[in-house]
C-alpha cells in the first residue's frame, strides 16, 4: 500500500462510526441551541434578527461551540484510542502512522464542519428570511462560513496535537479555551495576537467596540494576515501532531 493510500480508508471508516456515535448526536443537539435562539428572536423581534445573528455567531459559535467542539473531537483522535486500547490495531497494520492520524483528523474535521455548518445555515435562514434575495446577506453567510472553516481547522489541529502527547488533554484544552482565549484576547497591543480567537474575530464583520471586556477592545488585524496566520498555525499544529504521533510510544495498559 502506498504511503497515503490508507488515509481515505481510515477517513471513511472513522467518519462513518463518528457520525453514528453518541458524542456526535449530543453535539448536533448543542449546535442547534443558537438556531433555536435565532428562531425565537425572529418570532419576537424580527427587525433585529440580522444584528442578533452576528452577535450569536460571535459569542455562541466562535467563542464557545467551535473551540469546545474542536476540543472534544480533536483530543479524542488519539486519546479515545488509548482509553479503549484500540490504537494497537492501527499501529500494527502496514500503514504509516501519519496516515492514521491524518485520516482520523480529516474524519473529525468533516464531522465538525457538518455540525457547525448546518447550524450556521439554519441560523442564517432564520435571521435573513426576509432578505434572502439580497446578495449582502449571502455574502455575510459566506464570511461566517469561511471563518468558521478556518477556526475549526486551526482549533481542531491544535487539540489534535495536544491529544497526541497528553492524556488529560481535555482539561488543558478547557483551560486554554475558557482561560487563555477568553481573557488574553482583550489584552491591549500585540498580546491579544497570541490567541486564535483574535485572528478569527479579525475576519468577522463585527464592529471593534462589540464584544469588549473591561476597558480593552479588539484591535483587528488585516484580513489577509489573519487568514494566513490561521492557515499557518493550523498546518503547524497538524505537522506537530503527526511528528509526535510518529515517534511516541503509547502505553495502553499495565504491562505484564
Amino acid at each position, binding site marked *: 500500500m502506498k504511503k497515503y493510500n490508507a488515509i481515505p480508508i*481510515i477517513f471513511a471508516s472513522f467518519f462513518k*462510526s463518528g457520525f453514528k456515535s453518541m458524542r456526535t448526536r449530543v453535539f448536533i443537539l448543542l449546535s442547534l441551541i443558537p438556531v433555536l435562539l435565532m428562531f425565537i428572536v425572529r418570532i419576537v423581534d424580527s427587525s433585529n434578527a440580522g444584528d442578533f445573528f452576528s452577535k450569536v455567531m460571535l459569542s455562541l459559535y466562535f467563542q464557545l461551540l467551535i473551540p469546545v467542539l474542536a476540543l472534544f473531537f480533536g483530543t479524542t483522535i488519539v486519546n479515545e484510542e488509548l482509553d479503549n486500547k484500540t490504537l*494497537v490495531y492501527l499501529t500494527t497494520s*502496514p500503514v504509516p502512522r501519519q496516515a492514521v492520524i491524518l485520516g482520523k483528523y480529516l474524519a473529525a474535521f468533516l464531522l465538525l464542519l457538518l455540525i457547525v455548518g448546518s447550524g450556521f445555515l439554519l441560523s442564517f435562514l432564520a435571521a435573513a428570511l426576509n432578505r434572502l434575495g439580497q446578495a449582502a446577506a449571502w455574502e455575510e453567510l459566506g464570511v461566517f462560513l469561511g471563518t468558521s472553516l478556518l477556526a475549526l481547522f486551526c482549533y481542531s489541529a491544535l487539540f489534535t496535537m495536544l491529544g497526541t502527547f497528553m492524556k488529560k488533554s481535555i482539561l488543558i484544552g478547557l483551560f486554554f479555551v475558557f482561560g487563555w482565549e477568553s481573557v488574553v484576547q482583550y489584552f491591549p497591543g500585540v498580546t491579544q495576537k497570541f490567541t486564535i480567537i483574535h485572528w478569527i474575530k479579525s475576519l468577522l464583520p463585527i464592529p471593534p467596540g462589540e464584544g469588549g471586556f473591561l476597558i480593552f477592545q479588539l484591535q483587528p488585524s488585516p484580513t489577509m494576515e489573519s487568514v494566513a496566520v490561521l492557515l499557518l498555525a493550523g498546518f503547524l499544529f497538524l505537522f506537530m501532531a503527526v511528528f509526535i504521533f510518529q515517534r511516541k510510544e503509547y502505553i495502553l495498559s499495565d504491562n505484564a
Partner: protein
Amino acid sequence: MTAVLRAEKLSKWYGNILGISDINLEIGPGITGLLGPNGAGKSTFLKIAAGQLKPKIGSLQIFGENVFGNHLLFKRIGFCPEHDSAYMEMSGWQFILLLARLHGFAQTPAAALSEKALVTVGLLESKDRAIKAYSFGMRQRLRLAASILHEPELLMLDEPLRGIDPLWRIKIIQLIKEYEKQGRTVIVSSHILPEIEAMTNEIVLIHQGKIFAKGDIQRIRGLIDSHPHQVSIHCPDPRQLAAKLINNEYVLSIDFDAQGRGLTVKTNQRDHFFSALMRLIVEDKMTVEEITSPDDNLQAVFDYLIGK
C-alpha cells in the same frame, strides 16, 4: 536455525518499574511458548516485538529489521493483543474488513479474506452484530481473526486462550499447530503451563523480566516434578496419618494445622508421594476428606527455581 526474531540485551522499564531486563533471545520458525507468571514481562516483550513500545536498551529485530515505526514489516506480522479491546460500535465484519483494507487489499479480496478469517474463528454468523454485543470469548476470537486475516509469516499471540470456551480452545490450538506445519512462526504467551504444553515443546520461561530458562518443555517439567510440593490433607485423624507417612522416603516434613483437622506434607517427589498416599488410603483404610496442593502453580515453581 534462521532467527525470525532476535533480541539482544533488550531491556525496558517504565519509570521505576522493570518490564524486561537484558534479554538475549533468538526465535526461529515453529511454535515458541512464552511462559511466566502474571507480571513476568511476557506482554512487554511482545509489545516491543509488535512495535508498540521502544526498547530502552538493546534491540529487537524481526526478519532482520527494527520494528518500531517500520509499518511495512506488519505485512508479515500478525499480533493479537492481550487486552479486551476493539471498536465496540462497529460490527465484527466492519472491524475485520477495515483491518483487511488497511493491509492493502482491495475491497473484493479484503472481503474474501475477512470472511475466511471469520469462518476460521467461528464468527461468520455473528459478523453483523455490534462487537459490544459479543461475549468476551467471541471478542477474543475476533482479535485472533484480526491477527491471522492477512496470513502472516510471524504470528504473535498474547494470552490467546484467555476467556475461550473448551471447544474453541482445542480448535485454536489446532489452528496454531496448523500454522507451524505451514512453516510459519508462532510466538504465544501464557501463564498456564498446560496451555503451552498443548501447543509446543519449545518454551521460554520468563520471570521478573528475565529469561529464566529456554528449551524443551520436558526439561522444565522435570524441574517442576522435583520441586518440593506442599500437599494439604484434611482427615479426621491427622496424627495417625502422620505416623504412617513420617517414614516415607519422599516426605521431607509434616506440619499439623492449628485446628487439628489436617496436616501439610512437604515432598520432593510429588508423584511418588501421591502413590504412597493412595496405597495408605486403600490398604490401611485411612480416611481422607480432602487433598489440595497449595503451591501447584507456575509462580510456586518459579519461586522454587530462583531459590525464594
